[in-house]
């Protein structure tokens, strides 16, 4: 049997058309990527922004620490001038 020549082979090979890629594949690729990212993902942060964020975090931690320092006995001082206000209800006048 006589084999095909180059031109005939090229012509016959072109008869085999590939099926089209499913449209849902893009959603599968980029959707599937999102959820594991929440567990294993990483974020790139520029160095100056990172330093600024660390400074802000440090400042926030320091200020919250200074507000919540423990109360000591020295915080309780006698009142220098007592100015009592007497508040009566209308029923007490009768």
């Amino acid at each position, binding site marked *: 049997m006589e084999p*095909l020549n180059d031109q*005939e082979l090229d012509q016959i090979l072109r008869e085999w058309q590939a099926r089209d*890629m499913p449209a849902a594949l893009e959603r599968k*690729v980029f959707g599937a990527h999102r959820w594991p990212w929440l567990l294993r993902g990483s974020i790139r942060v520029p160095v100056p922004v990172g330093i600024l964020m660390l400074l802000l975090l440090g400042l926030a931690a320091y200020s919250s620490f200074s507000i919540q320092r423990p109360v000591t006995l020295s915080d309780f001082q006698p009142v220098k001038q007592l100015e009592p206000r007497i508040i009566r209800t209308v029923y007490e006048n009768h």
Partner: protein
Amino acid sequence: MTERDIRAAFHEHARTVYRFAWRVTNSSAAADDITQEVFLSLLRQPDRFDPSRGPLRPFLLAIARNLALKKLRDGNRWDVLDEDRFVAAPMDFGRAETAQLVAAAVNALPPLQREVLVLAEYEALSLDEIARTVESEVGTVKARLHRARENLRRMLAPLKEPNRRSIHGTVK
């Protein structure tokens, strides 16, 4: 590469990757899996692609190729016969359509011949790009492509008009 770059790469090359995987594995499910895995691996490790080492298309096809060969090996569809010694005989076509016959003939080729044929004939990659994809020398690619075409010439010979007429007895 950023996710935006990878999305652009998907729009530009996903169809090529899919077609290649589909033709080499002869399976839609495998082509789906392979295309998905190629781009997911790039999303997981965007720094894997180094533009200074070559263009993106052969890089993506090389990942697809490794996955496809793994699937063929896992499915025991990898013929251990030395591909240099593979000599195809004309196929018995019966009443099948030409496209089915071509698919059957291409799938009968040893995997290393099949992949270079698909990349050259159907994806129009240059010899250099094919060599990058299959991680071989250009000379090796040329030799494999030549053997693949020789085998197909013989396998598909019954489709040649004079042969076909003599098979079906339509010569008057």
